[in-house]
């Protein structure tokens, strides 16, 4: 086995025993990227050389282990463009809080940043200015999105582990499509400072890893209060690795009936049902539950997320950074810069969000959406009064073909139908590999828990993982 194929915790053990060096690990990644990146295209700006100084400190927790970062998380001095033309050449003068935390713990920030849908607008990674990423399990398929680059890099061993961001499923859905582990932490659990905002009330940074233990370790590092983020919660971070007990006996798991309706791929459905049976045999109790407002999650999301995005993305105007179309007229400069700098999906969402907030429509759209968001949150609150967690599919389908949904935005939006409610409710959820379709595409199992109960997710996910082998299977590239 090559070094790049190991999990982070395996490599940390090897680093501790001085069996390997951080430099060797970096080298193995570079070799792998040289070989498979032309097929997978998990990274942005591969041709450009940027410095990524190894940060090996024998005493530190992460001992120089490299980590791949999504292109929307600010890395001081490293180009950060959200895979958009409008941020061309942007080098942030500061590190995101998660990057500072990783560096403090001795991580090496990998110089190549992971590909993504422009500004995280998408579920397929096709909306990148740098072109699509390919699914390592089937190069004709999408890796999911928007953190498709991060997930594909981890799945193809072009990364040891990675950070993504999740606004409506952008970590969990690509994790599911690529057969890796992806966690969306509770809103407020991880600092958003330095995460280039898509929708501020929904965004969270989270880990994409090869197994649950890695996700627990990485969460332990990136979670925690940040005084620079008003929405970051000041609550102690437990040692998540202590949740990896392998025991779920007696846990009460809710199975939401609204997630098993028309639209759910039959193959996915039976794989998920098998996974649920597995959890039962491991000692958990399962019962059907109802999340009655599930069908409204997608429309609510596409109002709230686009409204916030329309405002968050107003700053990309060619004045302080990024791309500018020269003009001697200010308004023309703004309009041409934004017309040429944003891709079609970004424009679609900005216009939709601007409309939802505009005079005369605010109450009918934005305000109404905020109210339905309350109802969606209440659905979860109610279920969690009686249940420890909820288990459901991460996505209604396995990875789809590149181009298949690109021409139909609405169809694309519905890809996130099972992940969006979690962001609207602010709760944590994890996606773990739970099987493969006949064509060999991975399927993800989604586990959701109460706010700030990531421990429950790790416990259930780890127990399932330790009793199955899905996470050990690697794509042939």
């Amino acid at each position, binding site marked *: 086995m090559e070094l790049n194929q190991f999990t982070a915790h395996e490599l940390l053990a090897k680093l501790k025993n001085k069996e390997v060096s951080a430099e060797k690990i970096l080298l193995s990644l570079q070799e792998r990227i040289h070989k498979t990146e032309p097929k997978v295209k998990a990274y942005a700006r591969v041709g450009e050389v940027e410095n990524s100084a190894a940060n090996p400190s024998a005493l530190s927790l992460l001992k120089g282990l490299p980590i791949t970062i999504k292109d929307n*998380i*600010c890395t001081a001095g490293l180009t*950060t463009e*959200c895979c958009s033309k409008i*941020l061309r050449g*942007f080098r*942030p*003068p*500061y590190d*995101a809080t998660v990057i500072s935390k990783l560096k403090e713990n001795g991580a090496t920030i990998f110089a190549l940043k992971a590909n993504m849908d422009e500004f995280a607008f998408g579920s397929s990674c096709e909306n990148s200015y740098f072109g699509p990423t390919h699914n390592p399990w089937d190069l004709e398929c999408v890796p999911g999105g928007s953190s498709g680059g991060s997930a594909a890099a981890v799945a193809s061993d072009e990364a040891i582990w990675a950070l993504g961001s999740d606004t409506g499923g952008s970590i969990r859905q690509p994790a599911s499509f690529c057969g890796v582990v992806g966690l969306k932490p509770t809103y407020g659990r991880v600092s*958003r*400072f*330095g*995460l*280039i*905002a898509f*929708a*501020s*009330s929904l965004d969270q940074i989270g880990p994409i890893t090869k197994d649950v233990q890695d996700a627990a370790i990485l969460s332990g590092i990136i979670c925690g209060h940040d*005084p*620079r*983020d*008003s*929405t970051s919660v000041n609550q102690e971070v437990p040692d998540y690795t202590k949740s990896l007990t392998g025991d779920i006996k007696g846990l009460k798991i809710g199975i939401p009936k609204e997630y098993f309706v028309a639209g759910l791929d039959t193959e996915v459905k039976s794989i998920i049902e098998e996974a649920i049976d597995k959890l039962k045999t491991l000692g958990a109790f399962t019962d059907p539950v109802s999340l009655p407002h599930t069908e409204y999650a997608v429309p609510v999301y596409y109002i709230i997320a686009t*409204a*916030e995005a*329309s*405002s968050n993305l*107003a*700053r*990309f*105007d060619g*004045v*302080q*950074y990024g791309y500018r179309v020269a003009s001697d007229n*200010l*308004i023309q400069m*703004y309009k041409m810069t934004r017309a040429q700098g944003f891709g079609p999906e970004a424009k679609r969402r900005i216009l939709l969000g*601007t409309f939802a*907030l*505009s*005079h005369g429509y*605010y109450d009918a759209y*934005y305000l109404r959406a905020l109210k339905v968001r309350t109802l969606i949150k209440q659905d979860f609150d109610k279920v969690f009064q009686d249940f420890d967690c909820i288990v459901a599919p991460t996505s209604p389908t396995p990875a789809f073909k590149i181009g298949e949904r690109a021409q139909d935005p609405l169809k694309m939006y519905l890809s996130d139908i099972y992940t969006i409610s979690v962001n609207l409710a602010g709760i944590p959820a994890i996606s773990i590999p739970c099987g493969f379709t006949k064509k060999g595409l991975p399927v993800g199992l989604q586990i959701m828990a109460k706010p700030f109960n990531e421990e429950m997710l790790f416990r259930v996910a780890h127990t399932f993982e330790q009793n199955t082998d899905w996470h050990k299977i690697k794509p042939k590239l």
Partner: protein
Amino acid sequence: MKYQTVIGLEVHVQLNTKTKAFCGCSTDFGKAPNSNVCPVCLGFPGSLPVYNREALNSAIKLALAFNCQIQEHTKFDRKNYFYPDLPKNYQISQYDLPLSRNGYLDIFTNDTPKRIGITRVHLEEDAGKLIHEAQASLVDFNRTGIPLLEIVSEPDLNSPQEAFDYLTSLKSIIEYLDVSDCDMEKGSLRCDANISLRIQGAKELGVKTELKNMNSFKGVKDALTFEVQRQTKLLETQEVMLQETRLWDVEQGITVSMRTKEGAKDYRYFPDPDLTVFIIDQAMIAGIKTQLPELPQEKMQRFIKEYGLTEADAKILVSTKNDADFAEQCIREYPGKDKKEMANWIIGPLLSEANLRKVKLHELKLDKKELISLIGFVQRQDISHLSAKNVLSQMIDNGKTAQALIKEGNLQQISNTEELAAVIETVIRENVKSVDDFKAGKTNALMYLVGQVMKKSAGKANPKVVGEIIRRRLS
């Protein structure tokens, strides 16, 4: 007057916190362009705002001083519009849940009190500065993100003078609170005005004009005065009035229409998801109330009650906090029973000395003990009031004591009858006609004779004593 003028003012005040509203950048004025900036106030991608505790505290103080109701539940909203001085292309402001509402401010116009309603006081952030050159506009973001308060009045002001008095009163209170420099020239206080005219007694408001670009309180008054005339003329000639924004041109003394192509503004306000809500409970309000200083109105009432001052005098003394403190120290230290004596000295000679020197009362270099000593000399009739004023001026100039200056100038009044007798005799001899007039009952003649004695004694004779001697001598 056929028409009633209706004015509402929108005042923006920069809070004098050490750091900006949402980041730790310094608020120092006059720094090199773009040197007081960071990723947050530049609106760099990924940066996030966290509000300044001191700014919230100051804002609540101000709202309480303006008798506003502090809202229990308040939040920040985004006001979206594109402009190069706005790095995020939205301003963090407040929309439907402002910090406070329903306050008032009492003003005096021609000594008539009037209560002006305050619609709301809300929190927001300042924009940057633009410099327009021939080819391009230059942007400096140093001012961006400085905490601002917007204070919106009800349309309760009915004349340019009332608007002026409102601003004066508002500034006085804010200075008492020490939450802003309130310097219109430096831009730490800005004022826009809405003005319309209607037939006296009419209920409907007329078409309003928004006035901008006034750089002083006088500018506000002048612009409003011009606008009253302009609108009156339009109404008289029944011309069409447009609802528009007009800029005050201080050079020409006129308002000019600001022709904008933009239609109605659509700011797309919505709650800022990067900031949490604020719950301001009674305990917090009570805590801040204890930090409130005595405000001008209260101080005035206390001065009247405690020191027996007239309302007019007390009002002058409390207009700025430092001067009021100075005056009160003087009054307290003054040993005489009638505190009005000291008040008269402050409002009279002292204030004119300050005005002459273009400084504030409290900035006068004057030892209070010496002032009291000087007043003592006058009361004991050791020196004349006139001499005392000269001594005061010299005291301020050179810091010498009252006693030394009186001695140096040989200003001691002559009240000794014998010393005065010779001079009086001479004057009686030399002014036979006036003596006769006095004897004939013309009291004015006595004044003349006293004046002559004063002249001959180089102003040192005590005029009261002189008058008495002459009266006795001639009766």
